[in-house]
């Protein structure tokens, strides 16, 4: 039985309109499945707007019809025209770049439909940001703040690094919460549930974001799929936010883990004892450089061949990462026939323009793109490139699942750029320690 406040009961009774009523009905239904006893207020949300590929199962062209059927799970037509007044709602990646479609071989009608979907969401009160990395625009929940997001990476970063509270909800539930300002008080929203379960000793020197990312994969393969909050110990000298976001994003897509303590680094793990909060260690193991090497071997194609697409920036790059690309590619030329793209969010692209990084990358033969990413655009774009290289485990893994490339290579951004310049994959581009 779920205890509702008077305000929540009024919403559920329809006193604040059908949209908020439906959103709260779904939240209550979701809370019942989980076994939650009450709801909590949500003050930050990222939502998945735009004409995404999975929505194509609805043949109807009306945004609100599609929205109701797919995001509200109802067969009536409910107009999405508002979000909760106390919730800061921002959009995640869309299905198209903010301005370009021809470069992605995307039909103009798809681009126009995406723009129409975004505009309807904007009118409802969603700020169009178009990024998997909302923190780049100041969307930063603080410790103890309840938030929802469609991004698995942001969920685990928010819980672990910021001490804010979020579960891995889903695209539909993020909309429900953004509209009615509530989520089930369950899981990581409850302080007492945020304790460590598994103790992992890291006996490896982690120098680069790629090494942290592959550690996330190696660790995810050893952990149970559900119900774990790992705690890491080791020498993490030189760790920074870029390394942590790479690690957490890889861990989140390999398991359904959405919180991870790192002793001495994350705010709820000043000590091992604080991280476990008096609970027993369910399992303990050590990960070494050998485990990281073994995990990497399964992530990168071994066959040599042409490289036709090189994509950097998943999660979306910050301005310093773009500077590093510009510094390295300056004076070099991307090989004829190779598409070289760097992905970020619109305000960071504006900073790259201001600082001359965009011009350096364009002079080399590449582009900076915004608001989406290769796998979100999908097959219409990717099917044209037989050999594809990524500096992201998440992008390369999704492309492999989609089967729209013959060869998918995964390495760090500098070796990716080497491949873009040479136009072929060489054994020396593989990551090695």
């Amino acid at each position, binding site marked *: 039985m779920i205890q509702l406040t008077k305000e929540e009961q009024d919403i559920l009774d329809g006193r604040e309109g059908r949209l908020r009523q439906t959103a709260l009905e779904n939240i209550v239904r979701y809370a*019942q499945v989980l076994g939650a006893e009450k709801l909590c207020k949500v003050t930050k949300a990222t939502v998945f707007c735009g004409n995404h590929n999975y929505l194509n199962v609805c043949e109807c062209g009306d945004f609100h019809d599609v929205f109701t059927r797919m995001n509200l799970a109802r067969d009536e037509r409910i107009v999405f025209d508002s979000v909760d007044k106390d919730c800061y709602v921002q959009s995640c990646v869309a299905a198209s770049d903010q301005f370009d479609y021809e470069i992605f071989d995307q039909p103009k009608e798809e681009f126009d439909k995406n723009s129409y979907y975004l505009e309807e969401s904007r009118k409802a009160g969603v700020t169009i940001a178009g990024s998997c990395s909302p923190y780049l625009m100041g969307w930063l929940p603080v410790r103890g703040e309840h938030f929802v997001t469609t991004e698995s990476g942001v969920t685990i970063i928010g819980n672990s690094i910021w001490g804010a509270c979020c579960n891995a*909800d889903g695209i539909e539930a993020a909309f429900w919460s953004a509209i009615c300002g509530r989520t089930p008080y369950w899981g990581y929203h409850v302080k007492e549930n945020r304790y460590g379960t598994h103790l992992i000793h890291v006996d490896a020197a982690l120098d680069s974001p790629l090494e942290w990312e592959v550690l996330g994969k190696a660790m995810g393969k050893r952990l149970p799929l559900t119900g774990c909050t790992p705690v890491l110990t080791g020498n993490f000298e030189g760790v920074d936010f870029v390394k942590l976001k790479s690690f957490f994003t890889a861990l989140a*897509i390999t398991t359904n883990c959405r919180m991870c303590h790192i002793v001495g680094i994350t705010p709820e793990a000043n000590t091992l004892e604080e991280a476990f909060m008096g609970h027993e260690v369910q399992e303990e193991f050590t990960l070494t450089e050998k485990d990281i090497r073994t995990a990497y071997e399964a992530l990168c194609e071994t066959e040599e061949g042409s490289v036709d697409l090189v994509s950097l920036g998943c999660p979306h790059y910050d301005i310093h990462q773009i500077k590093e690309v510009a510094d390295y590619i300056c004076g070099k030329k991307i090989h004829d026939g190779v598409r070289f793209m760097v992905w970020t969010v619109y305000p960071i692209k504006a900073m790259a323009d201001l600082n001359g990084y965009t011009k350096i990358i364009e002079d080399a033969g590449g582009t900076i793109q915004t608001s989406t990413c290769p796998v979100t655009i999908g097959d219409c774009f990717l099917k044209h490139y037989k050999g594809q290289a990524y500096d992201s485990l998440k992008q390369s*893994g999704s492309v492999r*699942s989609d089967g729209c490339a013959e060869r998918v290579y995964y390495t760090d951004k500098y070796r990716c750029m080497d491949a873009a310049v040479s136009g072929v994959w060489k054994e020396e581009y593989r990551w090695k320690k």
Partner: protein
Amino acid sequence: MEKIVLQGRGVIPGIVEGEALVCADSITGWGGIDPKTGVIKDYENINKGKSIKDTILIMPGSKGSNGWSCYFGAARAAGSAPKGWAFSRIDSSAGVASAVMQIPTVVDFSKEDDPCVRVKTGDYVRLDGTKGTLEILKTSSQ
């Protein structure tokens, strides 16, 4: 055969029967299935190429992206949903997917009754979302 009834917590009511599809490593979110056909695309999945449509889908919980639920919701809209499903242990993404799908759902089994261990793909099973049971009516080896 000996009657095998696994007890969990029923969260979406309804009784359905069908062939079990057991994904003991779950299915990766965001692109793990083709929603139009229900076919599993996840490159690491043991059941890659099989369809979830009209099965009793059994998983330990969700895995991967927060986009996990929407691919199942899209499968529902396309008529490619499972008849019912069971999760060894409920988690938030599986909770959202269940709230969206509204198909008979049983969750939170004991370790001894873990359906990912006790049920095999191809077993004919009955799922009761009211009583919270998953019964093996015929094993795939029979």
